[in-house]
């Protein structure tokens, strides 16, 4: 009788263990943790020339606010350490330092944390099934992110971000914005797709993808931001331009011979039809004379 009981219990434990092991295998489809170096092969921020809103599907409200932006705002002490929002993870120039937090008993990943940079807070992707907080809960620069595996894709969603910028040139993102992420790994390359929605400032989802490569060395992480006097006293008015008074409104489009509606982020400029529309009016800029690119010798093969 005792032997019979032990055998049965052992078998039940074994079966349940098998089932749990299956669940665990399905929960983590590739190793996300590690150092992912930027490739710098894609241009998503252009040259940070004022009034460069290329490739953004902006609403009229966003365009108006962005045209009112004065770069001198960054000199204000209270704004110097105003970190970028979560979207800067893809739009910025840095790599991704990702760590996983593993629950010790069953070995399940509870969260991934993407390390901060000097101007972006760390992002934690909660993998433990917790819900998003109430819409009225605390908003931070990084926001609140949850994730789950769908096949071999990590799917994540970020809400509760503070109002911030989506481009250095002052293009705003509201605190109602959401970001949906997809992380795909192919060998040593990690490709991240970001779909940003914002009922106030984006006319349609802003889709951006960017790839990173496994790095044998750690990628750059946080250097604390320290404020200092940069010519603006506390309490000074916020530098800005009145409507139709931005002196740089034409600078970017003239520099590269670009159509006005493209530089100003009209949504239709993202699609191939627009390319056909401007075909007859476009004059390419003169040959490149400086900052044209850098040729390098390949490493020995």
């Amino acid at each position, binding site marked *: 009788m005792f032997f019979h009981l032990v055998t049965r219990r052992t078998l039940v434990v074994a079966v349940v263990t098998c089932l749990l092991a299956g669940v665990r295998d399905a929960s983590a489809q590739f190793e996300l943790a590690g150092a992912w170096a930027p490739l710098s092969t894609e241009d998503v921020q252009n040259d940070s020339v004022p009034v460069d809103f290329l490739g953004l599907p902006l609403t009229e409200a966003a365009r108006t606010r962005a045209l009112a932006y004065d770069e001198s705002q960054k000199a204000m002490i209270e704004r110097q350490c105003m970190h970028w929002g979560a979207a800067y993870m893809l739009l910025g120039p840095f790599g991704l330092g990702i760590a996983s937090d593993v629950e010790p008993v069953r070995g399940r990943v509870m969260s991934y944390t993407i390390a901060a940079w000097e101007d972006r807070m760390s992002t934690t992707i909660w993998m433990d099934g917790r819900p998003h907080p109430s819409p009225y809960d605390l908003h931070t620069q990084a926001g609140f992110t949850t994730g789950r595996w769908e096949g071999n894709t990590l799917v994540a969603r970020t809400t509760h971000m503070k109002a911030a910028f989506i481009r250095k040139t002052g293009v705003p993102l509201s605190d109602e914005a959401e970001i949906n992420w997809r992380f795909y790994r192919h060998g040593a390359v990690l490709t991240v797709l970001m779909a940003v*929605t914002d009922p106030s400032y984006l006319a349609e989802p802003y889709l951006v993808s960017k790839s990173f490569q496994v790095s044998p060395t750690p990628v750059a992480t946080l250097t604390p931001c320290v404020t200092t006097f940069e010519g603006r006293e506390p309490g000074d008015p916020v530098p800005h331009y009145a409507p139709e008074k931005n002196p740089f409104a034409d600078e970017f489009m003239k520099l*590269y011979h670009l159509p006005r509606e493209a530089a100003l982020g009209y949504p239709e*400029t993202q699609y191939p039809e627009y390319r*056909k529309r401007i*075909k007859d009016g476009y004059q390419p800029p003169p040959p490149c004379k400086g900052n044209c690119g850098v040729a390098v010798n390949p490493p020995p093969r």
Partner: protein
Amino acid sequence: MSRAHLMLLALVAAALAGPVTVRAQRQGGPPGGPSTSRTAAPAARESAPIDLTGYWVSVVTEDWRYRMVTPAKGEFRRIPVTPAALPIINAWDPAADERAGNQCKGYGAGTIMRVPGRLHVTWEDADTMRVDTDAGTQTRRFRFAPPAAPAGAPSWQGNSAARWDRAPAGAMGGSLHVVTTNLRAGYLRKNGVPYSAQATVTEDFDVATLPGGGRVVVVTVTVDDPVYLARPFIVSSQFKQEPDGSKWDPTPCSSTW
């Protein structure tokens, strides 16, 4: 048989059923579809873990200045070229390309996914996926089975060997992996930044469903070129699915636009 024995039997059955399901998913068989033969692998079309067929439009949010318009002659920022590429970059002459019948140099496999346009993805046969582009009216064939004939002469779209990369055990989904060789030399950008005939183009296609509906394909393209690239040139592009081909607008290759 006691109730305890029955419960035990059910648990064992459940445990065994799990791996069977996993095997079925890994082979990509459609739910309720025909059972997989033990002797012959299912065709690529039948075992597809993701559906790429249909019409897709590129969404140009990155490299706008290099893709939607032809950038300035001599600009190759962000492409890791070797010094050997510089004479070609600086000698770029679109009219000469046009006269020589090389107007499709900016539409080859090394760059076609970056050209703003639409893709029409269909199955030519059970093991060949066909990708047509309206920009430049190019046709690519992703062959899942080994080719029956020799590779033939180099071409703008080369020869593409494809395979499905399936999600690990117990999960649905996957991606398409394509390696293209036997290419004619082409341009990575319209303004004459070259890749050579020795280049290899590796592509990974992933699909995402967006909240609120809509599907997106993300293509990660890696161009390796021992002649003109100091390291692999890797970029990713995204395409939104369209309900039909009503916006399909074939246009020929052009060097000047």
